């Protein structure tokens, strides 16, 4: 059945085209269902072959579609292996749920069909990225995903801030894509091809450490752009301008994890470059810490979740940097579930509060929105890393792997722990401010539970958030076994005895509980603490990193462009005009010679004649 894989990509594309061109005629609910149907169909087609991997009896396979750029040996080819199968499941699974959710959420929007067209386009591009069998096709998916995120962020383009956020997202992504392009230049120079199997097959024997480091660092630049790591994370908070399902799908579950997926896919290259592993891990940890700190101060519910995503991505990048690729991917999966759930929950709250996103004006929604309350509760516990929930297992595995490395890695492990505390703290703050305590609603707000089409996805995601952790408990690493074919030949993290694992796990659990308790006691009061002044304000605006960029990169860039444009007019045009006026003034200078008086002409004639005679005689060698 695996040779139907191209259908998985094709159906959403068709869905996007149908909604784009026939959207107006199809009208509101139907186009939504078409979008949902397309993604669900892809999901169903992909499920059966995926189970094959689960059972361990099917092999990874590549599917040749057509030869794309012959001169570079690039073919449109899909690779079906456990890693891509897993990501396909996440993309289509979570994607389908979010499509269903969007039907309710986007109700009444005049460009309803256009929204689902863009969503389908996103799913298709993400699937191209995930199923690519070579870097070139992956890059196609990579940029198309950037395009669809641009379209979706600035979906309500009449709002100038939304349009600016979309543009900012695409341009920052493009900076990352430049890194990807240069990496591909090096890869083609080194291997003469982009195909994964050839590259990962021959790399260990052939590639030198410097080349591997260069390639991997450049790939990391791309990943930083896409997965919002330091220094290219500034676009994600602004991306919240887009509709909430977009944030849930793109800026939580799928697109932002593309960077982590790509690094996991290139694990062989990262293994050859320990130095870049260290750099990646450090940046991951630093990003996690910074984002967690900022998240604590945020008042807008979506921005809290945005910074939380950046922080959790930092964890995954830390995992990949440390070499625990399976752990990274595992956290990616669990994060997809509970972060999507959190966003959708937040969406449901915003929907209920008719657009209000400031937590200061919420509170006491527990009774009004029980389903959202319970599902977000599950996600809250999961992300904080409380015992049976999925977040605990995946986060713990990354921290354990970091700890096992020993040496300097302890520092990163320490940061990891601090981030775990902060995560628990800000998530509890969010949960308490939103659902518990005295209602602080505006006068006209009268919240009510969201319709079924929005709550069902919440419940499904909630189930996954709770149960999925068990798939990969330290005692029965079935998840690792599942991904094994994709990471064959990658050394496992050693030194993790059962005793060490349980003790580390208990440390993270205790720390998480501590975080929750502190936050609970601080915010579960009627009189909310005033969070203004000094540290709070600075953190609120992300420590001014944004306008730092503005002052040091955007402004000088614009001045340089002004200079270039003026230089064009002054210098180059000046030179051209100089020549032109030079010739013209030569003419003007000769004019007075033509005085009009016969005797001047006769004089010049005579002088010229004499000159000619003299020259002829000299040339001829006469007299």
């Amino acid at each position: 059945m695996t040779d139907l894989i191209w259908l998985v990509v094709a159906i959403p594309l068709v869905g996007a085209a149908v909604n784009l061109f026939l959207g107006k005629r199809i009208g509101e609910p139907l186009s939504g269902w078409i979008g949902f149907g397309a993604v669900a169909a892809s999901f169903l087609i992909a499920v059966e072959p995926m189970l094959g991997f689960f059972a361990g009896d099917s092999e990874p396979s590549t599917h040749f579609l057509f030869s794309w750029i012959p001169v570079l040996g690039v073919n449109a080819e899909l690779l079906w292996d456990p890693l891509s199968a897993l990501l396909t499941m996440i993309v289509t699974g979570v994607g389908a749920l979010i499509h269903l959710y969007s039907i309710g959420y986007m109700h009444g929007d005049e460009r309803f069909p256009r929204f689902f067209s863009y969503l389908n386009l996103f799913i298709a591009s993400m699937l191209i990225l995930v199923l690519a069998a070579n870097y070139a096709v992956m890059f196609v998916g990579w940029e198309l995903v950037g395009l669809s995120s641009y379209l979706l962020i600035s979906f309500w383009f009449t709002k100038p801030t939304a349009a600016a956020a979309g543009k900012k997202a695409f341009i920052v992504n493009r900076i990352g894509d430049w890194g990807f392009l240069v990496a591909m230049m090096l890869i083609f120079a080194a291997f003469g091809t982009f195909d994964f199997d050839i590259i990962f097959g021959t790399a260990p024997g052939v590639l030198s450490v410097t080349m591997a480091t260069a390639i991997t660092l450049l790939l990391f630049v791309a990943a930083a752009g896409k997965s919002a790591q330091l220094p290219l994370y500034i676009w994600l908070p602004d991306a919240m301008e887009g509709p909430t399902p977009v944030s849930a799908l793109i800026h939580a579950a799928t697109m932002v994890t593309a960077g982590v997926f790509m690094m996991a896919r290139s694990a062989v290259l990262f293994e050859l470059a320990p130095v870049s592993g260290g750099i990646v891990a450090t940046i991951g940890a630093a990003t996690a810490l910074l984002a967690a700190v900022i998240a604590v101060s945020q008042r807008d519910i979506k921005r809290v979740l945005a910074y939380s995503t950046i922080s959790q991505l930092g964890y995954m990048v830390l995992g990949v940097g440390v070499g625990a690729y399976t752990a990274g991917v595992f956290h990616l999966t669990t994060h997809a579930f509970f972060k999507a759930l959190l966003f959708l929950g937040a969406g449901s709250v915003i929907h209920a509060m008719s657009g209000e996103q400031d937590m200061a004006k919420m509170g006491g929604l527990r009774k009004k929105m029980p389903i959202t309350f319970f599902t977000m509760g599950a996600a809250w516990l999961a992300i904080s890393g409380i015992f049976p929930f999925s977040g605990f297992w995946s986060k713990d595995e990354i921290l354990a792997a970091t700890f096992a490395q020993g040496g300097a890695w302890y520092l990163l492990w320490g940061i990891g722990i601090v981030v775990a505390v902060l995560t628990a703290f800000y998530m509890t703050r969010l949960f308490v401010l939103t659902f518990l305590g005295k209602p602080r609603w505006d006068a006209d707000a009268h919240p009510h539970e969201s319709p079924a089409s929005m709550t069902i996805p919440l419940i499904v995601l909630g189930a996954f958030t709770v149960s999925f952790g068990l798939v990969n408990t330290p005692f029965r690493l079935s998840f690792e076994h599942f991904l094994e074919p994709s990471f064959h030949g990658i050394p496992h993290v050693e030194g993790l005895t059962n005793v060490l694992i349980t003790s580390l796990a208990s440390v993270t659990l205790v720390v998480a509980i501590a975080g929750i308790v502190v936050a609970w006691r601080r915010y579960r009061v009627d009189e909310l603490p005033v969070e203004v002044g000094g540290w709070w304000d600075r953190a609120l605006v992300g420590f001014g990193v944004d306008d730092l960029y503005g002052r040091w990169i955007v402004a000088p860039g614009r001045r340089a462009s002004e200079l270039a444009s003026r230089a064009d007019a002054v210098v180059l045009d000046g030179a051209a005009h100089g020549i032109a006026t030079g010739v013209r003034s030569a003419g003007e200078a000769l004019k007075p010679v033509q005085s009009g008086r016969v005797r001047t002409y006769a004089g010049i004639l005579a002088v010229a004649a004499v000159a000619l005679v003299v020259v002829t005689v000299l040339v001829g060698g006469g007299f």
Partner: protein
Amino acid sequence: MESASLLPVAFEVALLVGALLLLLVAVVAERKASVWGPLVGVTFLLSAVAGLWQWMDVADNGGGLFFSSQNFAIVRSPMVVMDEFSALAAMVLGTVGFVSFLGSWDLQSRLGKRGVEFSVLMLLGVAGLHMMTASPNLVVIFVGLETASIAFYILAGFTRKTRESDESALKYFLLGSLASALFLYGTALTFAATGSLSIYGANSIRNFFADQIVTDPGILLVGLALMLVGLMFKTSAAPFHQWAPDVYQGAPSGAVGLMAAGVKVAGFAALARIFMGGMISQVDIWAPILAVVAALSMIVGTVMALVQDDVKRLLAYSGVAHAGYLLAAIVAGPEGLEALWFYLATYAFMIVGAFTVVSIVNGPGAGPTPISSLKGLASRSSETAWLMAIIMLGMSGMPFFAGFVGKVLAFVAVEEAGYLWLVVVGALTTVIGLVFYLRVVITMFSSETDDSAGVDSLEVSITSRFAVVIAAAVTLTFGVLPWPLLDFVRSAIPF
């Protein structure tokens, strides 16, 4: 050729007979210009046919030196030669004469009785011009030169009522005769140095150089230089060009066409005959000098034309530049002759056509002809505007127009003769040329003028229209299909 048949001078005879008949008819027909007009046209055409007849005769039994029948003692220095060169010159001068006559008919029909004198002068002038090209004898060339010049001095001042016409005639006369005197003194010194006045024949200049090394060439060089000065004045090459702008601007527009075209064709033919025919062995003396003069003419011509506001002055200066390109063809020696003749033939028609358009727009008489007068010509008379555009593009050396073929082939010959720098100067000055030719074109096609004047409101006489059509047709056809004319011209290189 025992009996001295009249064929070698058939061209001149045709014109002279025509002139005489014209005078007789004019006395009888008084005012009615329509009577003697066609006669002039027929005479010109007849002269061209005479040229063709000469061509065919030469093609059958070879050229010859004439008026050298045995019993005359001047077998050693014949007066007239009939070869493809002179026959081609006759054909070109005849047809150019005809077209410029058409162009000037507006002027002549307005002059009433004096119109006849205008035509007679045109006929005699063209006869003089051909004498220059068909004679190997330096003095006869001088006589031809003077005949034509005197005729054109009068034509320049023909509309005496206007002040500019007086000034133009006087300047042309004084400077022209000064230059002729210089040329004559050159011939005298050459005669003194070589003992012969004729290029061909037994005791010719060419034989003189053939059989001895010139030990003390002083006198000869001065003579050669002075002859060069005379001819370069006539063909308006810089720095001897200063008369041209003033004379062309002052002279009546109808007359200027023939003056500009005819003198250039004859001047360069004579230059080619003397220097390439007679003094080819001295080529490494006069060629570099001609090259410098050519470059100077190109530069001065284009640069000055760039800053002109009067159409006739602009065309005069562009004539100086074209003289530069033609001189370059001569510098290339025999290789360049083909290009020279092609360029001369097509340029003559273009310049006549251009001046006819000026006379259509600003009236055939003398008077100011600013470029702005051409503004919006496309709406006033689109056919004239398009034809003038074709002529302008032809002159600018645009491909698919005649000027390009002549210029490129001249450059090829010049490059082969080793003057690369001259080709570069030529190519760059062509760019400047393009600017002021396009300025004329765009002025015509710019539609600023209010169309109140109505479409095609400018009335154009049949004769002028026919002249411009022929000129533009020559420019276009020989631009797109130059090859037949090129082969025809190649056979006209007797030496």
